[in-house]
């Protein structure tokens, strides 16, 4: 199964643009980053593809249990360059997730590497499953 997956040929996907509920004040395109989210016993991990974003231009905020990922990409081309052809566009990234109370919001860790953001959201102690031993007698 894993082997099969590794041999798959990648197809391009157009970046999905955000259709905002409110109009934005700044011009430019806003895209939704692709994410993987998985849960282990102790934490929830979010992996988001945000190519071109530097740590300085990445904002992760948590307010009222809403996790917001916001990143900005500077134009890749210098001013002297003329475009011959363009298949992808760059702009901002924006995505929000609502988190439940089981996340220990003070211990969230974020790491950005090669355009992939890894967010580790640890669960609070009470939410990690405990095995209850059943005694006989």
């Amino acid at each position, binding site marked *: 199964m*894993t082997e099969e*997956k*590794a*041999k*798959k*040929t*990648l*197809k*391009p*996907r157009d970046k999905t643009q955000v259709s905002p509920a409110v109009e934005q004040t700044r011009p430019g395109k806003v895209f939704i980053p*692709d*994410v*993987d*989210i*998985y*849960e*282990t016993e102790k934490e*929830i*991990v979010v*992996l988001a*593809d*945000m*190519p*071109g*974003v*530097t740590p300085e231009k990445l904002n992760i905020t948590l307010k009222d249990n809403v996790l917001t990922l916001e990143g900005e990409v500077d134009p*890749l*081309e*210098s001013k*002297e*360059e*003329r*475009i*011959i*052809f*363009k*298949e*992808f566009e760059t702009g901002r990234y924006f995505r929000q997730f609502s988190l439940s109370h089981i996340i220990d919001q003070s211990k969230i860790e974020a790491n*950005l*590497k*090669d*355009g*992939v953001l890894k967010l580790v959201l640890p669960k609070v102690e009470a939410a990690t499953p405990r095995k209850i031993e059943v005694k006989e007698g």
Partner: protein
Amino acid sequence: MRWTAWPISLRGAFEELDRMRQQMERLFEDFSEGILREPSFAAGVFPLVNVSEDNNNYYVRAELPGVRPEDLDISVTADSVIISGERRIPEEENVSYHRREREAGKFSRVITLPGQINTEKVEAKCKNGILTIVLPKAETAKTKKIAIKSE
């Protein structure tokens, strides 16, 4: 249908049309991939690239988040560049996935440049998930300025 109901249903109709258009495009992409695949500038081949130029160089850029340099292979000919490689996403064990949108797999792409390049001096770098290849133009491909003499 009442007149007041118009704007809403109209929007719905447009959305439906848009969906249909997208489906048609996808269908056509699948179709063209099988029959009409071209070695260069063809849509439907990963990764998507941007090509630009200035007076001295051509620039080829591609978004490759999470692709390690050792999994990337770049080769050049006199007027083209081939980007191939594999995007690996490690399968986590003993976890439950909530969402899986990121894709892994192999890719290969040939990009034909509009002019000849100096293959000896091509440079490639990966930064923040964006691959940039700088291909210096061969002397023949450079734009020359002609000085006009006044007599």
